[in-house]
């Protein structure tokens, strides 16, 4: 058992997390787009940091565990940006998403969805 590290005050971290939670709910209610992004996702990152660093003891763990988890997220970023050029847009060079743009010439009549979401 590793037990040599000093223990943080868990209850204090918990209270901090709850405060952050309240901020992240109240922030978006104001309806300002940049504030929504900041409070919703920025605070999610902060919360993640506190849970990981103190509850999961990452701050007292060998450094390469951080490294391991960071590499994982970086690779996910690679995946995201590699894919984004295709999936995140409705048109690009010499192609367009004709369903989203409503420009399909031959396809529309084939794509009818009835009430329960099944293909025609």
């Amino acid at each position, binding site marked *: 058992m590793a037990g040599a590290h000093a223990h943080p005050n868990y209850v204090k971290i918990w209270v901090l997390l709850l405060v952050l939670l309240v901020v992240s709910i109240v922030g978006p209610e104001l309806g300002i787009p940049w504030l929504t992004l900041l409070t919703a996702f920025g605070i999610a990152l902060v919360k993640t940091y506190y849970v990981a660093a103190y509850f999961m003891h990452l701050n007292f763990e060998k450094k390469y565990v951080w490294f391991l988890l960071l*590499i*994982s997220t970086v*690779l*996910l970023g*690679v*995946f995201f940006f*590699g*894919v984004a*050029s*295709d*999936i995140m847009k409705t048109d*690009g*060079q*010499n*192609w367009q*998403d004709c*369903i989203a743009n409503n420009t399909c010439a031959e396809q529309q009549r*084939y*794509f*009818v*969805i009835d009430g*329960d*979401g*099944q*293909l025609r």
Partner: protein
Amino acid sequence: MGQTTVTHDSHAAHGHDHHEQSFIMKYFFSTDHKIIGLQYMFTGMFMAIVGGYFAYAFRMQLAFPGMEVPLYGTVGPGQYNMLITNHGAIMIFWVAMPVLIAAFGNILIPLMIGCDDMVFPRLNRLSYQIFLLSVVVLFMSFFVQGGGFGGAWTSYPPLSAVAEYNLTDWGASLWLIAVALEFVAFLIGGINFVTTSMNARAPGMRMTDIPIVVWMIVLASIMFMASVGPLIAGSVMLLMDQRVGTTFFVPSGGGDPVLWQHLFWFFGHPEVYVVLLPALGIVAEIMTTFARKKLFGYKTILYTTFATGGLAFVVWAHHQFIAGIDPRMANIFLVTTLLISIPIAEILFSYVATLYGGSIEFRTPMLWALGFLVTFLLGGVTGIYLGSSALDIYFHDSYFVIAHFHSTFFPIAIIGMFAGLYHWYPKMFGRMMDETLGKIHFWGTIIPFNGIFLPLFLVGMAGQHRRIYNFQHFPDLATADLQGIRVFATVSLVTMLLFQFVFAYNFFVSMFKGEKAPANPWKSNTLEWTVPSPPPHGNFAELPTVYRGPYEYSVPGNKEDYWPQNMPDRN
């Protein structure tokens, strides 16, 4: 070390507990890494027979369209699609991975790093049981109504997502579940491999004293873990599409089929390296042993392997050059794809340089290892054609692609497997295999193999595309010349399959009648050769301490030309 004394006591107690096990407990519910490795190996070899049988059936159909294939029956279009789909999936997911990573990983890692078992033996057993379950589910998928899934191993939606399109309602779902279960099994196994080799190394074993094959299997496991996650999520989404009727990948409901292609190839391309690396590792062990040479540039090979592993994650879209991705992206992936040829070339050069100045003995394992290099070289250089995006316009989904990736996957999965098997057979079963039969098997495999796939490069250049059960609907492809090439390839395939009986005979007869193997028949350095063949439960009577790297062959000043890793003094 205080730890060592403690472990010795527990070891004695441990060995004692296992004395009175029944046959079933010993061979079916064992947590011993060697038994689990053998379970993986036999399951993988059984699946190789199934995959080979499928290949036989559809190649016969291609050579003699409409004929009743002996031992199979008539191959219709639906049957044909099912055969090619499952041939591909079986050979990659149920042959290459279990044999190269799971079987060799399980057998070799604890023996080579000098410990008594995997660190999570019961997790190891669970991994095999999930794998076995995936095999059962896969077989179920062949027999449900509508037949087995026929949407190719890539299972591109919407074809795979909507039963009205693929006509194999439950076949597709069971196939997908089987693949997902297989992923889970290897995730668990991979965690075990990585943790074992990170934590349980013998005292004195530094990072650079680890045999290359262990490094390779561990890196492969890490790459597998990192690449398969998004595809597991994607499989859940595709399964929802199939069974619940959501439209994640169906454009009519707002989904995007191209997303699946990205998810699949983000896994699928690293997967190539996942199976390549263990095979490269096996070949390195064999080449150094039989050339009596130190591996040329251990660290160079290690670093280039890291580079390969990293680059493998940024090349995936070269499978999609003309699959509808934005053409500007293709240029980026073209560059990364050609970049990856650089570390791989460096590794191959180092392997060839290992031969320089050696004392090469052409025993059966060495023949397979050299055969691996030559065939893989062919597969590697033909990859340049396909990595070149503009040329891929012509070659995409043609037989050139088939010939290319069989020239890489066959050496990886089959030649690599045989090389490892011939090399470690004495350690696994305690008996030697017959040399002459082994050499017959080698030449009888390698020559027909090229007889199959060299002609397929030609038909690929002639514009013949994949996954067609009968070329009579394509006038340009149904010429007598091309048909002649197809017949030649099929005849070669049958020849190659027939030569595998030589192996089967050698394998099973040697298991009982072969010459008894000494502990170190090849005079090799690594730790697994310091224990009796086969190793007892718990492997090492006394846990070894490591003094040097694994490839100290022909060291000047030593009497013998090998120097085991755990030998304190000069040999």
